[in-house]
């Protein structure tokens, strides 16, 4: 039975792989789900395409989302911290170990200060 979330696993496949999987799925499902599968493949291809002419709707909604994001984040390089009461929580301790094992350094009572991060390196239109 094909479900929308079946495509989650396709992230681990190559580009040729997920098309092949879609074809395999379509061999074993009804016409209605075949149509759904084809639409899903087409949508995902459009989202990943670098050709802007093929994704005008995506660009429109992306601009709206970016504008909304900017309204909610007038100072969006703010300090990241976690409430002190959670510092000894096993998940927090595990995360700290994991992140530091990757070569990152976190503060004692906060994770990142605003000075350690800037979005200037990220090219965001009109930001």
């Amino acid at each position: 039975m094909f479900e929308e979330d079946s495509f989650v696993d396709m992230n681990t496949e190559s580009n040729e792989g997920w098309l092949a999987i879609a074809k395999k799925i379509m061999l074993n499902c009804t016409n209605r789900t075949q149509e759904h599968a084809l639409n899903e493949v087409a949508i995902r291809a459009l989202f990943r395409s670098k050709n802007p002419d093929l994704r005008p709707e995506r660009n429109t909604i992306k601009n709206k989302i970016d504008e909304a994001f900017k309204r909610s984040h007038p100072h969006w390089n703010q300090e990241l911290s976690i409430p002190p009461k959670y510092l000894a929580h096993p998940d927090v301790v595990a995360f700290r170990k994991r992140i530091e094992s990757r070569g990152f350094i976190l503060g004692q009572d906060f994770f990142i200060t605003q000075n350690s991060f800037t979005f200037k390196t990220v090219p965001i239109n009109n930001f």
Partner: protein
Amino acid sequence: MNDDLTTPLSDLGLDEYRKAGDALHGAKGLLYNLFKSFSNEKTPRFDEATAKKKLEESTNGTSFESLKGRQWRLFFADFMNNLIPCIKDTEEAKSILYPWSEVQFLIYHDFTSETKTQNVILRFYVQTFLVGFLILQRFPKLMNLYLHNIWIHWTNNV
């Protein structure tokens, strides 16, 4: 593509892709569940009438049950205007919604090798952890496939 299954992908400009986290389904699934969790809270009570009004204003949607993924992302990206007025304990809600909106922005951002700096990666890791952790503190039952996908797997793709 529609019914065209014969034209080579290269002719359609669809031959170049990059593997990434499943932002589409992960975001839609989490945001639907997160909204339902907020709206089901009895104490403090969620203002459903205001939420419906904000839904129509911001996304042109008519029902939270039929929103597309992009409408969910738009609704949550403007959380200060759309969601915070509906939630009573605003500071705790902001502690979840603020990092989420950054995670959403970053997972959809088209990074290049030059722009994906260590600082960006660290920011994404920490924000993603904070989102998952703080959601589970407030809504322990929200640990499902979508949150797992975001919390555990998205960080491998940015």
